[in-house]
């Protein structure tokens, strides 16, 4: 199959291959590459795809891919590159009279304008006779000098055949939203999660810790219909959060043109949810509360619920029927939050549906065994975003078979995210 160069953004390195794989399945484009050739510190990866059209389709939604380039040559010197390009002279003929453009870039170094001009002139053997167009050229050629710590360059050359969707990051920038809160996920990661979930037209996606609704927006942008719930109605309604009086999640819908696809939000405890039995959702996309900025809580009372407290009469009215009655909550420890989330996903996802969620972990203590398991959910991806003493991992799981009467696997050791909130505020000092 023809070779292409994937030009990644150089950040969230752990997330790049999982996104590529998710898009490959979503867009139904077969992409082959040697995983050993993937270098975290490099923005380039050589892959094989059946055609330029398929390559463009593969990356069109990508958040961590800048562009995809038809491979014409690479090497340590320009001579090596020219030699490789000269092997396929018939290919140049296709662009002899096309309008064209050269983009010269450097990674790990800056090139002066003069150096760039010299690079372009070095390719004059291509003898293109068409006009140079800086915008909307029929053929865009890309040259990049990639430098690593050795200061020895690797030079890449090819024709750009497709671009990703990094422009969405600006459009979904949280600073531009009518409504946001202090736990609102940044745009880049919210969009990435929608790709991991393979959100697309026809799907029904649920967020059980919806907060200010970021994932409802990004999944709906890609065509899915979305619903969200949260135990805290104030976040949904907009009566708490940075921008009050703005009507909460609803305020963002018109701005992103997703009113028809953000179906509903509701107030309830995810661990005591009122969904009727059986699979309902194609994906569950969420950022559960770690208990740090947003206190993780569930309905209940420390020490046990006391029915008499809600049933007793206050001024002749049962307490729970009074307008200002607010049912009690109890702390909801992180490992239980995740355990219950997996149960929820196992029961309410259709087979083939995905669970995409963030798992906070303590650096230095985390092992892969800490990622919770479930008999009907298969781990698809696990990407780390490090913050020094702790990290969070974006976990993608896929439901591979129907849920009968399976029991969840009970972990043998306390995972590194147990009691995450206390660990965080104790600066992750080792637990005795």
């Amino acid at each position, binding site marked *: 199959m023809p070779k292409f160069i994937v030009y990644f953004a150089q950040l969230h390195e752990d997330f790049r291959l999982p996104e590529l794989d998710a898009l490959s399945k979503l867009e139904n484009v077969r992409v082959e590459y040697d995983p050993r050739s993937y270098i975290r510190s490099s923005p380039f990866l050589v892959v094989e795809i059946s055609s330029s059209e398929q390559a463009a389709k593969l990356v069109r939604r990508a958040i961590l891919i800048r562009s995809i380039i038809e491979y014409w040559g690479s090497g340590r010197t320009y001579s090596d590159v020219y030699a490789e390009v000269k092997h396929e002279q018939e290919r140049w003929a296709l662009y002899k009279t096309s309008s064209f453009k050269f983009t010269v870039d450097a990674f790990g170094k800056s090139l002066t304008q003069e150096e760039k001009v010299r690079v372009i002139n070095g390719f004059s053997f291509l003898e293109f006779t068409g006009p140079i167009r800086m915008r909307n050229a029929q053929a865009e050629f890309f040259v990049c000098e990639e430098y690593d710590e050795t200061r020895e360059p690797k030079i890449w050359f090819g024709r750009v055949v497709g671009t990703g969707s990094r422009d969405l990051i600006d459009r979904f920038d949280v600073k531009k939203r009518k409504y946001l809160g202090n736990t609102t996920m940044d745009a880049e990661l919210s969009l990435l999660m929608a790709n991991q979930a393979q959100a697309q037209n*026809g799907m029904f996606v649920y967020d059980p810790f919806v907060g200010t609704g970021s994932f409802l927006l990004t999944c709906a942008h890609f065509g899915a219909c979305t619903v969200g719930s949260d135990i805290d109605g104030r976040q949904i309604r907009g009566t708490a959060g940075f921008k009050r009086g703005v009507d909460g999640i609803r305020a963002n819908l018109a701005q992103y043109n997703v009113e*028809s696809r953000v*179906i509903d939000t509701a107030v*309830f405890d995810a661990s005591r949810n009122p969904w009727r039995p059986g699979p*309902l959702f194609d994906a569950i996309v969420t950022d559960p509360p770690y208990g740090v900025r947003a206190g993780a809580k569930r309905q209940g009372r420390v020490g046990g619920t006391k029915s008499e407290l*809600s049933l007793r009469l206050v001024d002749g009215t049962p307490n729970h029927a009074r307008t200002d009655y607010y049912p009690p909550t109890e702390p909801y420890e992180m490992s239980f939050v995740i355990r219950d989330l997996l149960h929820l996903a196992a029961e309410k996802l259709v087979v083939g549906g995905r669970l995409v969620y963030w798992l906070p972990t303590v650096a230095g203590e985390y092992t892969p065994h800490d990622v919770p398991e479930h008999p009907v959910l298969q781990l698809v991806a696990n990407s780390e975003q490090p913050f020094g003493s702790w990290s969070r991992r974006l976990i993608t799981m896929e439901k591979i078979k129907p849920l009968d009467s399976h029991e969840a696997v009970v972990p043998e050791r306390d995972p590194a995210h147990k009691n995450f909130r206390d660990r965080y505020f104790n600066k992750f000092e080792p637990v005795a």
Partner: protein
Amino acid sequence: MRLITHNMLKCHVKNCDNPDKQFPLRFKGAELEQVEAERNDEFLVRMIPRLDWRALLVTAKELGIELPENIPEDPENDDAFLQALHTAILETHVKEGSMVCNGCNHEYKITKGIPNMLLAEHEI
């Protein structure tokens, strides 16, 4: 709240577990609003098997919404059916009112289209 969501919610009060009574929830004092929405046939067709049609008919009758008794053999190509379904489950919003459980009589209030399904302490 759109009717598609209502079709998926049941009463979850402790010990209220008669499936015939706890679902569908009965509307009380429902204030409806029709809001036009972009029709999405792929979504509608995909959701048909996940809807509880019997319950949807009960609810539609309760609210005076038009809905065919039966799902056609080939819904993908039945424009009239899809339009009726779209209007019923995606364009009909319950803005205010409450949903009542026929089993335990718990009332779930709906405010500005958002249902509150938190339970009181004795119901957890």
